């Protein structure tokens, strides 16, 4: 494994001019003609993916994430815009002439070839010496912990093992970027979680740029250095997992990543960064918000930021009273649904720690509270 990082990556170094992103997309758009009407799959995306980054394209199906990745791989050509790899314009270049490799959702392993031949496929097309090929394939199979299975046909491997072969087959070429299209989608939960850690380790070991397409927010949050949240062919938000989770920029991001509570109200007054928002029928809370007084705003608060008590909390915490309508026990945590005075509901996550205050029952009246900076207004 150590050899993997020490190996000179000549092909990168040639392209890795200082500050040049591994992949850059400039005003990329893609329109299809389907059933007599134009479908706009991607609408003007600008992205810079840095060298060595684990970058995720996250969004629901049909958001354009896979189309975007396929344009990087060269399987689709953009209707307009430019794709650059290490600064070089590759917009019209065929997939087999691009220095990126892809891990397909279906794995797309060659069923008639052994594991060795599958992994060696790219190296053979590049006409590397057979000794080199043997060494590199052995190294790649070791990286994915599949050494000893060289002579096996993919059909005889489990789903998780096939996944590893697909990964080794792409990685062995040391591409300047590895594109992964929902590679863990077909695996069961336990294996998926193990593979997430594994992928992150491999990415750290080999130092190759990973572009990861997924609709699973947990996966994206776990592995990524940065996430682009996509919706309707556009990038809704770009940031680190913490930024995207803690500070969703749009209503879509807030709803798509994790669970979030939305409270609608009117700005009643403000002092600096913090505004007082009146929620009709429920009360007033303070939140970070830059909308002017009188404006209607939607506040969002993450469920784990909310405390729940029987007594009204003291101090400067934002607080509202409500009634517990649902209690869902999840082992390590319990999820409560609390109905507020205005009829809206907030979800509260509480860890089941041994010293936690006694749990609330359905129908009980409780106070929910949070620090004012944990609630903020979404634009629009």
């Amino acid at each position: 494994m150590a050899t993997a990082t020490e190996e000179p990556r000549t092909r990168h170094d040639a392209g890795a001019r200082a500050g040049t992103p591994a992949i850059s997309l400039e005003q990329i758009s893609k329109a299809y003609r389907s059933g007599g009407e134009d479908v706009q799959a991607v609408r003007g995306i600008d992205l810079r993916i840095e060298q060595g980054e684990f970058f995720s394209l996250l969004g629901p199906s049909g958001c354009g994430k896979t189309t975007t990745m396929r344009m990087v791989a060269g399987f689709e050509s953009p209707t307009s815009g430019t794709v650059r790899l290490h600064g070089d314009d590759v917009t019209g270049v065929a997939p087999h002439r691009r220095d990126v490799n892809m891990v397909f959702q279906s794995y797309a392993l060659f069923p008639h070839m052994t594991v060795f031949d599958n992994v060696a496929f790219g190296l053979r097309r590049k006409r590397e010496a057979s000794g080199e090929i043997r060494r590199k394939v052995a190294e790649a199979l070791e990286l994915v912990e599949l050494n000893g299975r060289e002579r096996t046909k993919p059909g005889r491997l489990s789903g998780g093992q096939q996944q590893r072969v697909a990964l080794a087959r792409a990685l062995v070429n040391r591409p300047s970027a590895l594109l992964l299209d929902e590679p863990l989608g077909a695996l069961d939960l336990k294996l998926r979680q193990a593979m997430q850690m594994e992928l992150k380790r491999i990415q750290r070991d080999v130092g190759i740029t990973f572009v990861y397409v997924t609709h699973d927010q947990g996966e994206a949050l776990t592995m990524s250095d940065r996430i682009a949240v996509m919706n309707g062919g556009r990038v809704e938000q770009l940031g680190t997992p913490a930024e995207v989770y803690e500070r969703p920029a749009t209503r879509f991001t807030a709803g798509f990543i994790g669970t979030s509570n939305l409270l609608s109200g009117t700005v009643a007054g403000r002092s600096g960064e913090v505004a007082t928002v009146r929620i009709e029928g429920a009360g007033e809370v303070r939140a970070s918000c830059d909308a002017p007084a009188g404006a209607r705003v939607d506040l969002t608060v993450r469920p784990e930021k909310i405390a729940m008590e029987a007594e009204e909390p003291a101090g400067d915490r934002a607080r509202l009273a409500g009634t517990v309508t649902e209690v869902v026990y999840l082992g390590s945590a319990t999820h409560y649904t609390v109905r507020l005075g205005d009829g809206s509901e907030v979800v509260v996550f509480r860890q089941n720690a041994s010293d936690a205050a006694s749990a609330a029952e359905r129908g009980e009246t409780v106070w929910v509270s949070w620090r004012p900076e944990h609630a903020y207004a979404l634009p629009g």
Partner: protein
Amino acid sequence: MTMAATREGKRGRTARLAPYALVLPGWLWLALFFVAPIASVISMSLMTGGLAAGYTFTFEIGNYARAVELYWEQILRSLLYGGLATLLCVAIGYPVAYWIAFKGGAYKSTYLLLVLLPFFVSFVLRTISWGFILSDNGVVLGTLKSLGLLPGDFGVLNSATAVVFGLAYNFLPFMVLPIYAVLERMDHGVVEAAHDLYAGRVQAFVRVVLPMSLPGVFAGVIMVFIPTSADYVNATVLGGADNTMIGKVIQTQYLVNNAYPLAAAITFILMAALLIGIFSYAKALGTEQVMEVQAR
């Protein structure tokens, strides 16, 4: 209690016998229409006698020696024509199947129907039509000759070429369909994966698409080679005296000369030759791989 136990026992027995009962019609069918005729032809091939005097079983191995001695030329010619027609079918049928499967889009079934359309007309009738169209002074050659584009003594019929092309024409759909079936269900991702791994169009085809479609080619070759080698209609209608195929010999020996034992012996020699051909072909292709991919 005892009633329940009996019913339980009955149901157990029924459940155990059910698979055999279900398979029975199939076995009966095979026994009646495959095993019995084969056995009868084998025993016939070892008999002596005539239609009038009747045939007696004398274990006459000489029938086989006579068959080979008299008709080795026709047997070899049949295998050669069948082989050439099969090669032609692969050469023409593969691109057709490939095109329909990968480029056919929404009209795949229409194109397949077009491939099958000639089947709606009788096989013999179609072959005779070709004989008519290609005759020395027929629609095509006659016109070309009268225009001075072809020499007056030019002819297509009564030649090996005519027979081989006629066979290929008649059996082409049997090659297109199995190849199409394999290509159609092929995961397009593997082709993209090949491109992604630096293979151009030719490399992707040679290394991935072609090997993965071999089971279809294998099925097509069997379905074309066997009937073309045994065919006698094309040789009779489109060929001449020099192009007689073994099917014609068998037919004549059975139905005209009533030499049943000799005809049966020739039949068996042809069958053995085809089986040896098919098995060595499967071996060369890698039977294990053919079966494995097909099983998927």
